[in-house]
């Protein structure tokens, strides 16, 4: 698979590579970095915004955004934690993103949970407290309203998003290979 894929290069200075292999663009806006956990081998591309500063108002350490391995935050995508009124006070809730998650360019994600092996196409809007289970595809330009639950092995599309298809049983392998392949191809220009 991916025998003819070409390398995606970037200028060496534009991205920071961490010890665990994360590649983070210098032009990505990362607020509240202490509240963000990256699992390793994840890519955060140019212009994306991660709002780690929107933390729970109570004292103590809170993880706002946690992300697994082999994830991709596309160009200009925004990840922000969902918030709501709870017992008379406005509170933010953490965003949990598992392994092998690709979030396309220009997405706005306020999901509560994104399972492993999820692909979100370009220009999607994922509403507050959306739960996306393992292995799902959100086709480009889909809008998922607040609180939508996306079950495993489903394909969603439209505004508002609806289930349009189911995935083949091999999707887990396909998606994992795709994410690993993308990470390996994303490298600095020699």
């Amino acid at each position, binding site marked *: 698979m991916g025998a003819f894929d070409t*390398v995606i290069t970037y200028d060496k200075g534009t991205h920071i590579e961490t010890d665990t292999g994360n590649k983070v663009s210098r032009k990505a806006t990362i607020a509240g970095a202490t509240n963000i956990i990256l699992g390793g081998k994840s890519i955060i591309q140019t212009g994306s915004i991660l709002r780690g500063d929107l933390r729970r108002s109570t004292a103590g350490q809170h993880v706002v955004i946690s992300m697994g391995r082999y994830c991709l935050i596309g160009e200009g995508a925004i990840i922000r934690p969902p918030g709501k009124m709870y017992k008379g006070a406005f509170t933010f809730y953490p965003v949990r993103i598992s392994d092998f998650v690709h979030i396309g360019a220009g997405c706005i994600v306020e999901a509560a949970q994104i399972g492993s092996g999820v692909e979100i196409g370009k220009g999607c809007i994922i509403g507050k407290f959306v739960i996306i*289970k393992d292995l799902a595809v959100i086709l480009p330009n889909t809008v998922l309203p607040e*609180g939508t639950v996306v079950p495993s*092995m*489903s394909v969603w599309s439209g505004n508002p998003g609806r289930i349009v298809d189911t995935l083949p049983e*091999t999707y887990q*392998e396909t998606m994992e290979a795709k994410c690993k392949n993308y990470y390996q191809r994303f490298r600095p220009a020699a």
Partner: protein
Amino acid sequence: MSLLYACSHLDPPISPLPPSYPSSSSSFSPLHNLYFCEECDAVRCDQCVAVEVASYFCPNCLFDVPSANVRADKNRCARSCFSCPQCSSSLSIQATDSIQSGEASSSTTSAPGPPYILTCSGCRWSSKEVGWEFEKPTGIALQLQKTHSHNEPIQSEFDALKEHLDSYISTNAPPIPTPRSTRAPFRHISHLTQMASKALHRDLSGMAGSSARARPRGSGVGKDGEKEKVGWDVLGEYESKTSWKQLGLESGLEDVEKMKKLEYSGVAGVATLDRTWDKSWNGNRMASAILPQRIPLQTKLTKRCPHPTCRHLLIQPDTKSVRMKIKMVAMNYLPHAELGRRKRRVTSGSSAGGGSSENLISPEEAEMRRRERRLRGKGPLTKEEDESMDRPLEAGQVYTFALALTNPLYDPIQIRLTQPHGPKNAPEPNHLLYLPTQHFTINALKDAWAYDEEEAEEDPTFGAGGSEAGFSEEGTVTTGTGTGTGTLSKKSRMSILVGGSTREKRSRGETGVEKKGNTSIVGLEVEILPEAKGKVEFDLEVRYTYRADEVSEKGEKGKEEYKTFTFWIRVNAGQVE
């Protein structure tokens, strides 16, 4: 570009019809959609597998519904999941108190409480519009059943009719008809036919003769009416629950009401067809009158081999997780084929119009000529130019493609690539295909960690040059960060290849094959005929030889058993415009 694989749909594996037959497309699907039955040693596709429902679940609350309850719940979630009548996204439960106090005085912590309503976060619809309010935020479907039991009059009528007929179906089978009662009807004779036949055989005054003549022929059925009825189904008359007279249909009051509403709301007030699709024709069809529906359940499917003597499980899902208990997919058995790296042959100077000159030559001759040209090697005459795969092909040009095959097995395999022979009268294809490398090997898939390491070390691009460049790459050790493990794994891979006794000669003499990891890349040459139009598609027959494990254990040491498997792939090289 991934290619399509053929499934023979239970037929013995034969080469599928060529692409010029549009009907052949139904037997091709992408590799990731195919299954593989080890017992039958055959590819199976979604169209031919036998499907059973393994479990039901609600896509919104993800509750696993026991299959015993599914029928009673009418295949919909019986908990609190409703879909919006306007936009079909799922509704959320909201306490009404919190809305009012939230805006007015957010500082005062008023506990949100009943009544609860359903709201749609997609289009801001709320169940207040149809007057639905609930006391508890749980078990909405149950609460609704208590308060609004008859939301559609036709539904109760349908249920009553179904119950009436159910009693007919569920009554015990009729007693075995005695030889005397030959007139006992079979079950499949409809009620109407029975009534008609009863009427025909009724005794009429003055027609006693006819019935008397008929009776003896009925092989001695007694004159007793009771006996005649042996085996007859007794079905009572069905009486409808409501009558149209009660509803006042005759006075047309409903229509008047409808027209009034329509006048008020305009055409936009009528619900669109896709919103009323799953409802009866009877009833209010205004958009404002549509009620939220419980969300339909989804299923997880078990898939079996369709072969009548096999029926082995190919897919068995786990109800708890996304993992499969049994997963026999073709991806783990067949090499994965990809097409890429398109190049157009630029013929220099005089032979620039090669397409038109070859027009006059028969295809066989052209083939010969090309073969010769090929044998001469890559002379200075021919130059190749890279092209994007998306660009349309040009008629009369020669293109070369690279075909990559990736081995999913832990043993090296040997490939034979041929062009299948179509039926005799098949329409002529719009191109000529030449396979310069027909026999080659593919290295084994390695352990995931070894593979990953190698991937990380090597450059993922396969040498940009010709096929020879790739071959030389195989021989040399990669420079740069190449550590000890990298070279070691390479050597062992080579030794495995050489170890295969029958393939030794072949692997030595391999040219035109580019190898990397468990992928081998060979060239394809496609000559588009000058008058060609439309899609350029062709089938390839791939036969691979692999080592079968089971046989080698049977005492016969040293001699390894090899097996072959043949499959067909369809290559869509592009479009001629």
